[in-house]
C-alpha cells in the first residue's frame, strides 16, 4: 500500500515510518505536517492510505478529508482518545493511540487490506471502481464515511447537497454537479435539476404527467423525472 503520514511532530512521523519498515509491502510515498501541505500531497500522489493525526497547526485531520479531491482510506493516530473520534459511528474508522505498537498498526493495516481485496470489489471493472470509494462528510458534531454505493439519493439543499444513506442523511458543502462528476453514471441517475437517485435503490417506476416518470424509491420517497430525463432513464434501464 502507498501511505502518506500526516503529523505535526517529526518524531511521531519518524516513529511511524520506523514501524512501517518492518513490512516491505508498505511504502511511504509522502509526509506532511499541516493541512495545506497534506492536501497538496494527497491530491497529487493519491495514496491508498492516510495515517492521520487529528490536531494540526492550521486545522484538523477532518479538514483534510473534507477538502481533498481524493479520499484515501484513513487510520487516525492520536495521543489520546479524542472526543472528536466519538463523533463517528461505531466501527466507521480505525484509530491508533500513541505510542503505537507495531502489532496494533499491522492489525489495522491488515483490516484495510482485506476490505480492499474483497471479491466484491475485485470483480468490479476499473470504471465503476468508484462505487467502493467513499466520501467524508462532517455535519456539526457528526462525522461519516459514506461509500458511494451506499448513497440512495442526493438532493439539492440550499447551496449544498444533502445525501441520504444507510438510515440517515447529512449535508455536504458541495454543489450537486460537483458530486455528480464523481458518481458512477451506471448506478446514479440525474432525475431532475434537484435530485440524483441510485438505481439500485429504486422500488418501482410509474408513468407521470407530461410523459415524465415517477420514481418511487424502496423507502417510499418519490422522485419526479422530467420528459427528457425519463427518456434517458428508459435507455439506461434497457441497457
Amino acid at each position, binding site marked *: 500500500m502507498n501511505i502518506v503520514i500526516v503529523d505535526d511532530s517529526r*518524531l*511521531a512521523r*519518524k516513529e511511524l515510518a520506523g514501524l512501517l519498515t518492518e513490512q516491505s509491502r508498505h511504502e511511504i510515498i509522502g509526509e506532511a505536517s499541516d493541512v495545506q501541505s497534506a492536501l497538496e500531497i494527497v491530491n497529487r500522489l493519491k495514496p491508498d492510505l492516510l495515517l492521520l493525526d487529528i490536531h494540526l*497547526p*492550521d486545522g484538523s485531520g477532518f479538514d483534510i478529508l473534507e477538502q481533498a479531491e481524493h479520499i484515501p482510506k484513513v487510520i487516525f493516530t492520536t*495521543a489520546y482518545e479524542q472526543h472528536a473520534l466519538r463523533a463517528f459511528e461505531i466501527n466507521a474508522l480505525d484509530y491508533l493511540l500513541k505510542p503505537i505498537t507495531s502489532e496494533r498498526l499491522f492489525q489495522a493495516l491488515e483490516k484495510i487490506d482485506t476490505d480492499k481485496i474483497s471479491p466484491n470489489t475485485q470483480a468490479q471493472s476499473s470504471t465503476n471502481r468508484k462505487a467502493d470509494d467513499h466520501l467524508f462528510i462532517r455535519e456539526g458534531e457528526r462525522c461519516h464515511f459514506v461509500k458511494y454505493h451506499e448513497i440512495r439519493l442526493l438532493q439539492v439543499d440550499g447551496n449544498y447537497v444533502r445525501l441520504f444513506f444507510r438510515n440517515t442523511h447529512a449535508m455536504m458543502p458541495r454543489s450537486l454537479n460537483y458530486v455528480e462528476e464523481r458518481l458512477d453514471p451506471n448506478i446514479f441517475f440525474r432525475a431532475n435539476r434537484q435530485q440524483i437517485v441510485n438505481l439500485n435503490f429504486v422500488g418501482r417506476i410509474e408513468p407521470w404527467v407530461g410523459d415524465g416518470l415517477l420514481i418511487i424509491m424502496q423507502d417510499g420517497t418519490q422522485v419526479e423525472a422530467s420528459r427528457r430525463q425519463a427518456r434517458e432513464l428508459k435507455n439506461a434501464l434497457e441497457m
Partner: protein
Amino acid sequence: MTVTSTEINHKKYWLFQLAFWGGYWFLDIILVTALGYSSVLINSIFAILSLLMFGFTHALRFLYKRFFHQKSLAHLCLQLLWLLPLASVVIQFILFGIIYMTLQSNPDLGQGLQQSSAGSFVVYSMNTCIMLILWCLVYLFKAEWAKRRQIEKTHWENQVKLRDIELQFLRSQINSHFLFNALNNIRSLILEDTQAARQGLTDLATLLRGLMHSEAKLTVSLRDEVEWVKGYLALEALQFEQRLSYELAINPELLDAQLPPLLLQTLVENAIKHGIARRRLGGKIRISADSISFNRWRLQVENPTAELPMEHESNGIGLKNARDRLFAAFDHNATLELHFSGTVIATAEMPS
C-alpha cells in the same frame, strides 16, 4: 443516632400546631371571660373546636404534601377556595352535632347558652374559615419558603459537583494528551538520540513529581514552578522542535515569591496549545516575572496568536481553573487577565 432535617421539621410542625391552636383556644377563653360568658361548657366547646381545627389542618397538610407539593401556588390557592369553606362548614356541623347530642342527654347544661340559629351557624363557620385561612397563610409561607430554599440548595450543590467533575475531566484530558505525545516522542527519540531520550524521561519524571505534589499545596515558590516549566517546555520541544522557542526573564529577587502550583504551567500550556501548536511555523513564548510595587509582583506569558481562528475547542476552563487557584491562595488580592493585541499576553498579579 443522627437527627435528620426531616425529623427536626416534624418536631417544628407539631410545636407550631400546638402553639397555633392552643393559642386560639387560650384567646377564646380570655375573650369569653372578659365578656362574662365563661363557663365549663363554653370552655369545653372551644376546646373541642380547637381540637377539630387541629385535626382538620393536619388533614390539609396531608393533602398538601400528597397532592399539591409539586403544583404551583396559584393552583393550590384555587383548590383552597373551595376546600377551606367546606372544611369550616364541616367543622361547625360536627361541633353543633356534638353540642346537640350533649344537650339531648343532659339538658341542664344548656342553661346560659344562646339559642342557636341558621344565622349563627353561618357566622361561626365564617369565623372558622378565617382561622383556617390564617393557618394556611402561616403554614404555606413556611412550607414554600423551605421548599424554595431546598431547591436552591440542591441547585448549588449540583453546580459545584458538576464543575468539579468538569475541571477534573478537562485537567486529566489535557495532561493525558500531552503525556502520551511526550511518551511517543521519547520512544522515537530512543532510536535517534539516546542521550536526548534519557533527558526527556528525566524531564517527564520531574514534571510528574511536580504535578503530584501540587495537588496538596496552596502555593509554591516561583523557583520550583520555573523548574517544572523548564522541564515541561523541554518535553514540548520534542513535539514542536524548532517551531517552539522561548525566553525566560525572571527577576532573581522574585524566585522565593509564592504562587499557586501549576499557575505558570497552565499559562505556558495555554500559550502552546492556542499559539504555537496552531501555527505552522510556530513562534516564541516570552515568560517574565517583575515587581510592580514593593509588595506586588507580576507574572506574564506572551505568545503569538493562532494562524486560524479557533473553532469551539477552547472554553476557557484552564484559565478559569487558574483564577480559582489564585483566588484560593490570595482571595481578592490577585488578578489574572488576558490581553489580545497582535500577541496574546496573560498577566497574573499577586502580592509578594
